[in-house]
């Protein structure tokens, strides 16, 4: 399969106050996928994120106020749904996702509907130690079992989606904590979509490092389990017609 250059590909970059990095991210994506449309969803930034993204050559959808990653991504999936894109890829605006893996992710969409760019799967030297990584492992095991796929990194925001997944996510992409990652995978599975992963290496985040303490990890796991429980209990009807 030709590396994502034949089908219509949309790259969605959710960005909240990322004026310093979003331009580089857009340029990196443009280098790897010259034919793809790049949509930056400005999630109510106040630091010139939109201008930086536009200057780098992306089209920009500006949310009137901050909705969180889930809200920004559903905006992106709605755009993909309405404009007939075959594949939608999600890349963080902070630069932690390496654009050189994009072709692999997009190619894998022919095998599955939701492809996660996953850490801890052999690629890269992303070293997270301590309770936090145990919490993430446990979570990945549980979610992997639920969606019937071997997963190592369910909280990754680096993912590619098929047309079928775009349709589901244009209706349901939770804005709550971990809703955009964990819960959305369960929604995908319950909507009959296949989930798979591709190993990637990630760059170290410069800001907003997650809590490394034991208590922090326990809280994290508890909240993740809550998100998981909600995803299993809630109904996720997908209307037949496009919105």
């Amino acid at each position, binding site marked *: 399969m030709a590396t994502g250059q034949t089908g219509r590909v949309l790259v969605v970059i959710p960005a909240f106050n990322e004026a310093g990095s979003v331009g580089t991210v857009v340029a990196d994506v443009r280098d790897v996928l010259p034919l793809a449309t790049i949509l930056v*969803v400005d999630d109510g930034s106040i630091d010139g994120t939109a201008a930086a993204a536009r200057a780098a050559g992306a089209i920009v*959808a500006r949310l*009137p106020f901050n909705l969180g990653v889930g*809200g920004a991504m559903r*905006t992106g999936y709605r*755009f993909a749904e309405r404009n007939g894109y075959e594949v939608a890829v999600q890349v963080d605006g902070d630069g932690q996702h390496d654009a050189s893996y994009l072709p692999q992710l997009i190619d894998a969409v022919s095998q599955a509907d939701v492809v996660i760019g996953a850490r801890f799967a052999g690629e890269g030297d992303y070293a997270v130690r301590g309770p936090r990584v145990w919490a993430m492992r446990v979570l990945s095991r549980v979610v992997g079992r639920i969606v019937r796929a071997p997963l190592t990194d369910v909280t990754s925001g680096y993912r590619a989606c098929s047309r079928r997944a775009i349709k589901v996510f244009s209706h349901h992409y939770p*804005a709550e904590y971990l809703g955009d990652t964990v819960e959305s995978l369960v929604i995908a599975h319950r909507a009959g979509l296949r989930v798979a992963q591709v190993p990637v290496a990630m760059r170290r985040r410069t800001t907003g490092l997650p809590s490394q303490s034991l208590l922090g990890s326990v809280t994290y796991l508890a909240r993740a389990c809550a998100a998981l429980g909600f995803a299993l209990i809630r109904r996720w009807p997908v209307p037949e017609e496009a919105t």
Partner: protein
Amino acid sequence: MRTSVYLLSLFGATVVLALVLELLRRRHLRGKYAVLYLVLALGMVLLASVPTLLGSLASAVGVEVPANLLFFAALIVLLMVSMQLAYESGRLEEETRTLAEEVALMRLDVERLREQLHADGTHD
């Protein structure tokens, strides 16, 4: 019961009823809530003006201290009201979120159309 207590409870119930009616008159209270609050206020007025009513209700359902029946009923009502409000605010939040997303996409559409118009040489 002492007259002062009787008057106090009647006064309290009447104030609540008056407040509900005033909010209703100013159209601050929507129909479905108005009915609930009207029923509650009328019930309070009724209980306050007929002091023996609570006692007979309590003995009818087997509650020894009449005030406990009142507290139980009040707790249930308050719980239902707060759940109703949580439901409404959740619904509103989801609607607001959807509108915000639509606004973002429409702004994008407008910007692109405007650029296209300018590129075509049509000036506005």
